[in-house]
């Protein structure tokens, strides 16, 4: 009997502590969850957050993002994840822009997880990602004479863009030409659609709900809150069961 009382005491103490710890998160998860369930009806996917400091926290330092100038053209990845060829939007590109160059008539925008092959008119010829065998993360892109080469953590690889093959290493000691990043000229930046209209309320709520707003650590934190809630449920059930047994008269 005394042992059971001690167990209930320990359970109650931890249940209370964890409850206080989880309360704020439970409120946040409940509110964001309910609102997300109605996000389309509320138009949250079409209205945008107009808080510059939050956009900055999301990495929207549009003014600081690198741009590359192969030939007379500019290649730039805006904060909304889309690559622009001068002022023409080409396509979304996964990962930060790590380089761009012109190989023959083709332009290559190299993002960390995807290559965009672009025509001189700014049309997307092909997007090449891991599903097509692209080794990632791509660290850079360059030219060995007229051949495009990719840099990964394992070294430089010849980029055969016709057969989409990246398995042949670049010749050791070859001279690799790369474009240095530059700052996008204002005359082009001003013609790119306003960058502040990419962070929708729905995305912000989703990121709050999943913890992604604080990066990978935020996701782990939300996972931990999930574990705490499971413990609370179990400790609550255990206390209820023990309390019920204590109130019931012992019968033999």
């Amino acid at each position, binding site marked *: 009997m005394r042992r059971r009382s001690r167990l209930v005491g320990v359970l109650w103490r931890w249940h209370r502590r964890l409850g206080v710890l989880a309360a704020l998160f439970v409120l946040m998860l409940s509110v964001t969850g309910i609102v997300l369930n109605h996000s389309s009806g509320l138009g949250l996917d079409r209205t945008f957050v107009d808080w510059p400091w939050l956009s900055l926290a999301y990495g929207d330092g549009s003014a600081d993002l690198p741009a590359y100038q192969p030939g007379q053209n500019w290649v730039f990845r805006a904060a909304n994840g889309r690559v622009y060829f001068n002022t023409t939007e080409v396509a979304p590109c996964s990962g930060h822009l790590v380089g761009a160059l012109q190989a023959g008539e083709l332009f290559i925008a190299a993002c960390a997880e995807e290559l965009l092959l672009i025509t001189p008119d700014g049309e997307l010829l092909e997007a090449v990602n891991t599903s097509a065998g692209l080794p990632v993360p791509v660290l850079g892109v360059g030219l060995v004479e007229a051949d495009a080469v990719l840099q990964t953590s394992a070294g430089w690889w010849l980029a055969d863009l016709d*057969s989409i093959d990246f398995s042949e290493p670049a010749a050791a000691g070859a001279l690799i030409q790369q474009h240095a990043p530059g700052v996008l000229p204002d005359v082009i930046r001003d013609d790119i659609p306003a960058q502040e209209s990419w962070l929708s309320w729905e995305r912000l709520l989703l990121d709050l709900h999943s913890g992604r707003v604080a990066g990978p650590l935020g996701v782990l934190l939300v996972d931990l809150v999930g*574990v705490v809630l499971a413990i609370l449920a179990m400790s609550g059930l255990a206390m209820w069961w023990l309390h019920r047994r204590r109130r019931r008269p012992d019968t033999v």
Partner: protein
Amino acid sequence: MTARSVSWSIGLAAILVMAAFSVAAEEYLARDDFLRLAFGDSEPEMQTLWMTEDTRAAARDAVGWVPRSLRLRYWQAEGRTAWILEDIGKDKPITLGIAISNNQIERVDVLAFRESRGWEIRYPFFTSQFSGLSLADDGYLSDTVDGITGATLSVRAVDRVARLALWLDTRVGG
């Protein structure tokens, strides 16, 4: 350190590792694995279809949608074609593999999913609904496909890509 705290630490570490893997996982199937599922061990050579102005206009008329890319890749052998195509569900591209034989879809696989919602489309309970479907005269699939709540845009993307793949199959004489 007591045995109890050690076991707590191990449990917590396991949860963190599992969470880290679940965050990183967006590539579900590699290209070669999809082609192996479509063709077995005899993978045919990759071929290229150029989406010229005429082809794009014809595709738009037939199925109401064309991808951005001017160059599409496909594989063809013994009357069967396999396509790897991308479409944007809400914000980010979904990479799909579609195998077609006798003008009917044999299989649909989600190779990569990058959106924050709608990943349920990768499960066989959804993709298997496409098996056996063909392209009707009105440019839609020959039968309806049950959607998934919360994944409407992703479901629509798969539907669009499936219709385009069927149309492309007839284009290359699959």
